[in-house]
C-alpha cells in the first residue's frame, strides 16, 4: 500500500517537473569535439611500445573522472577535459582513433600500481612530477604547469592573500592530494578540512563551514566559474605543479615518443586548441604558454 502511494507521488512529481525545462538542459553542452587527426600510416620500430599499441589499434589510458576541466565524466559516461584531449592527441599519433581509447579511472592511490602492473598504458591525470614518483614510474612532459592557489568567498572577507594567512583558518582540500599534504607539511597552523571531491569543498565554503579552499589553480578557476558571485581566487600561486604523463619505468623510447608528440602539439597549436575546448572553455581564460618538456 505504502509503496504504491509512494510510487504514485513520485510519478506525479515527475509529471509536474517534466513540464518545465531546466537551465542545465537548455545549456546542454556538446561534448568537446575531437580535432586531432588520426595518423593512418605510421611506422614504428618493431618491439617498441609504439609498435605494439599501433598494432593493437587500441590503448588504455588512466585519467581522473572528477577533476573539472582536466578529466571529468560527463552524464553520458565519457570523460572530458584537458587531460583527455592530450590523451587523444597522443593516441592519434599512434594511429589510434579516439573511440578506440579505453579510459580507466585512476585516483591518487592507484596511479603508480596501475602503471607498474600494466593495467594502463599511460596515466594522464593531473599527475604532478616529483622525485619520489620518478623512482616508480617514468614521466613524459610536463604538458602543463599548475600552481597551488587559494579560493575564498567573494569579497575575501577574511583578507587571505597567501598561504601564510591560512593560520587558524579552516581550509578545505581533498584527502590524499598533493596540495593537502603541502598545507599539512608547510603551513601546520591551518586547520584542514578534507573531503573526497572538490564540489564538497565548494559547498562547505558556501555554507561558511570553511574559510578557504586550496588546490591547483586550474581546478579552483573551474569552481569560481561555476559560482562567480560566491567565490573568488586569491591569484597568488605558491607552488609549481608540473603535470606529467606517467609511463612504465625504463621505457625510454616511449617516453621520447610522447615528448616528441607533446612538443609538436605545442608548436602546431593543437595543444592550445585542446586547452580552449576544455579547461579554457570553463574558465574563459586564454591558453597559457606551453611549458618546456623535461627530458631528464
Amino acid at each position, binding site marked *: 500500500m505504502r509503496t504504491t502511494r509512494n510510487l504514485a507521488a513520485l510519478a506525479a512529481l515527475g509529471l509536474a517537473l517534466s513540464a518545465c525545462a531546466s537551465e542545465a538542459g537548455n545549456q546542454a553542452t556538446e561534448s568537446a569535439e575531437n580535432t586531432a587527426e588520426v595518423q593512418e600510416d605510421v611506422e614504428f620500430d618493431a618491439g617498441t611500445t609504439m609498435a605494439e599499441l599501433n598494432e593493437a589499434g587500441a590503448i588504455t589510458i588512466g585519467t581522473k573522472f572528477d577533476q573539472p576541466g582536466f578529466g571529468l565524466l560527463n552524464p553520458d559516461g565519457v570523460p572530458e577535459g584537458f587531460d583527455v584531449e592530450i590523451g587523444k592527441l597522443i593516441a592519434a599519433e599512434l594511429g589510434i582513433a579516439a573511440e578506440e581509447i579505453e579510459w580507466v579511472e585512476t*585516483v*591518487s*592511490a592507484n596511479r*603508480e*600500481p596501475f602503471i607498474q602492473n600494466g593495467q594502463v598504458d599511460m596515466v594522464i591525470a593531473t599527475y604532478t612530477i616529483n622525485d*619520489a*614518483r620518478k623512482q*616508480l614510474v617514468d614521466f613524459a612532459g610536463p604538458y602543463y604547469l599548475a600552481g597551488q592557489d587559494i579560493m575564498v568567498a567573494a569579497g575575501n572577507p577574511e583578507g587571505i592573500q597567501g598561504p601564510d594567512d591560512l593560520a587558524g583558518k579552516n581550509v*578545505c582540500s581533498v*584527502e*590524499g*592530494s*598533493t596540495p*593537502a*599534504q603541502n598545507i599539512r607539511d608547510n603551513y601546520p597552523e591551518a586547520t584542514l*578540512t*578534507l*573531503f*573526497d571531491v572538490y564540489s*564538497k569543498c565548494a*559547498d*562547505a565554503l558556501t*555554507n*561558511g*563551514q570553511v574559510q578557504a579552499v586550496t588546490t591547483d589553480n586550474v581546478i579552483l578557476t573551474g569552481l569560481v566559474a561555476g559560482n562567480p558571485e560566491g567565490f573568488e581566487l586569491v591569484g597568488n600561486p605558491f607552488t609549481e605543479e608540473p603535470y606529467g604523463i606517467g609511463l612504465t619505468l625504463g621505457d625510454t623510447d616511449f617516453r621520447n615518443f610522447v615528448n616528441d608528440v607533446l612538443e609538436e602539439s605545442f608548436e602546431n597549436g593543437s595543444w592550445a586548441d585542446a586547452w580552449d575546448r576544455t579547461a579554457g572553455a570553463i574558465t574563459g581564460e586564454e591558453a597559457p604558454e606551453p611549458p618546456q618538456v623535461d627530458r631528464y
Partner: protein
Amino acid sequence: MQFYADNAGLFWDAFLTTLGMSVLAGLLAVVLGTLLAAFRVSPILPLRGLATFYVETFRNTPLTVVFFFIIFGLPQIDFVIGFFPGSVLAVGLYTAAFVCEAVRSGINSVSPGQAEAARALGLTFGQSLRQVVLPQAFRTVVPPLGNVLIAMVKNTSIAAGFSVSELSSLLPRLVNANAGELVLVLVGVVACYMVITLPAALALNRIERRVAILR
C-alpha cells in the same frame, strides 16, 4: 616497522578519533533507539507512526546519503554543523534505527505473561515497560545489539569522506605520501579496527553463551 614507527602518531590519533566517534554515536544510538522502540509499542498513534517512519527511512537509506544530508543538507535549512559532531549525529541517527529494531524484537520476545502480570499489578504503560519488560528485553537484546554496535564501529569509516580524520582516512592520505607502501597502510588500518572490533566480538560471544544458559 620503520613505516609504522614514523606514522605511529597518525595511527594513534586516527584510532582515538574512530573510538571517540564510536562511543558518542553508540550512546546516541542506544538512547534514541530505545526511545524509538518504546514509541513503536506505545498506545499513541502519531508516536508509533513517527517511529515507524523513522526506522523505515533510515534503514533503507545508505549511510553516505544520511551523512550528506546532515553535513550539507542541514545548512540548506540554515543549521550549520561541524564535521565531527555532524558525523557522530549521522552515524548515531542511522544506527538508532537498527537499535530500535533490536530492542523491539527483544520486547516482543519477553513472555506476554510478564507484561500481563505487570498490568495486573496496576503498573502503568511506562512503569511496566521500564521496570518489567525492558530489563528483561535488554538481556535477550544483548547479542543483536552488540552486532549492531560492532557494525557501527566499522560504519564510522564513512566519515572519512566528510573531513573526519579517522582510521579509513589514513588510506588515501598515507598512500599518496608513500606510494609504495599500500599493503603496509592497509595492514595497519585493519589492525587498528580489529583492536576495537575483535575484543567486542569475543565479549559478545561470551555474553551470548551466558544468556543461552539463562534461558
